[in-house]
């Protein structure tokens, strides 16, 4: 875990001044509401995001998961031999067919 010490030190180095700056910029405010853009009543979320949005979200989750699995494949197995290559092809083929099907069904918009 020692390699993350650098990340933590950088986080402290950047985070503390940034947050102090935010606190300073926000000083003495909050009571006035005469500014433009003040969301005194934030509007509701759009009533229906629609089925299309849901389908695109599902397509994203499936593909992202598959993509991460393929990272492991690319690093661990790679195209070392026919067997590994075939395994990957068998994994990608249904994925591609599914993607094409979702596209055809209009999940990706017009």
């Amino acid at each position, binding site marked *: 875990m020692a390699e993350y010490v650098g990340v933590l030190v950088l986080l402290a180095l950047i985070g503390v001044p940034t947050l102090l700056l*935010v606190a300073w910029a926000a000083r003495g405010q909050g009571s006035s509401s005469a500014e433009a853009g003040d969301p005194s009543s934030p509007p509701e979320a759009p009533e229906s995001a629609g089925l299309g949005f849901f389908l695109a979200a599902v397509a994203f989750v499936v593909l992202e998961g598959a993509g991460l699995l393929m990272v492991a494949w690319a690093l661990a197995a790679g195209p070392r031999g026919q067997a590994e290559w075939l395994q990957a092809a068998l994994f990608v083929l249904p994925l591609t067919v599914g993607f094409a099907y979702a596209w055809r069904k209009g999940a*990706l918009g017009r």
Partner: protein
Amino acid sequence: MSQEETLGSAFWVLVAAASLLLGVLLGVLVPLVAWAERKQAALVGERPGIGRTAIAGVGLAGLFQPLADTLKLLSKRGPASTARFAPAWGPALVVIAAVLPFAAIPWSGRYTWGDTSFSLLLADVEGGILYIFALAAVGGLATVWSGAAQGGVGLIGAFRSAARGLSGDLALLFSLLPMLLIFGSLHLAEMVAWQDSGFSLFDLPVAFSADASSPSASSPSASPLSASGPTWPAWGIFLNPPAFVLVLTAASVRAGLPPFNAESADAELMGGTRSAHAGASLGFFALAARLQTILVAALLTLVFLGGWSIPWIPQATLVGGIAEYLGDGVANAICLGLHLASFACKFVAMVFLQLMIRSSLPRLGYERSMDLCWKIILPAAFIDLALTALVLNGLGGDLA
């Protein structure tokens, strides 16, 4: 900025100094990029552009403009809603998430000086490039957060930024996969060490089927590619040119850099996610955008342009050649200097490529950015991945 195994006090001093150095580097690069962005846009538009800021009569072609802009933003009063939690802290989180990826960016190879070996890399994290992906997701989430809490156009901008960011993320992952397949590593330093060699353009199969031991940062000469006859640098952009275009586009979409910034543009959505921000918190967004420009340029340099490597002169050859005359320590020092210069040249070229794109292309609507990711980049990345795997498989089974 090296990693030591022991957690002694020297280690802490080293890490603190390295973090400080990285902070100073970014503190210099960000205003320079901001200046270059405006100068370049003015040149393209045949306008005089910035250049009238001066301290004691010294103008330096407007180099002080970013400083003046920063002071202006800091002196401005934010809207009342800034005091609420999410709107105020969201932009700060956007900046923090834009800075942290630089911890995993290597700026040089590994060199020896006496008994110690060092490299300009703050944190050699295990996830490598996946760590940068993770922080990009945090930044995207913070953008959504700081927009959604505003309501109105901010909320619409937040929805669009989420959709655009996720689509860009997916496209970026799949367009990077062929490169991971070629390099067989997530570590950026190892990718560069791999590229620090050459391949023969007209004799590719012979070059590829050479004995391939696992490349590592400590032995840059152990590249799987061997040269026979006239060679070409084994850079990612030459091995897989389509991937360069795909990654450049997908990374710009992922980061929401122009021309893919419709959800936060004044002309499209009245500022969108930034609509209710002013003063310092608006400045944070501008700062994060410059940091992401720098990050994308650094990533492209490392993955596709061979990072700090010098074409046709591998590190071992360079150090060996100089060491004959000046000794090992001096040779390593000279090599470090040359490598830093090489990295800087490629990095500047990548920044200007991005600036050229944003000043010459019209801004894409949010739907068109999505379509670009899902219907053009993603299928193209699938084809590129299949072809890369096919070629690698055909050229020599035991490449990795």
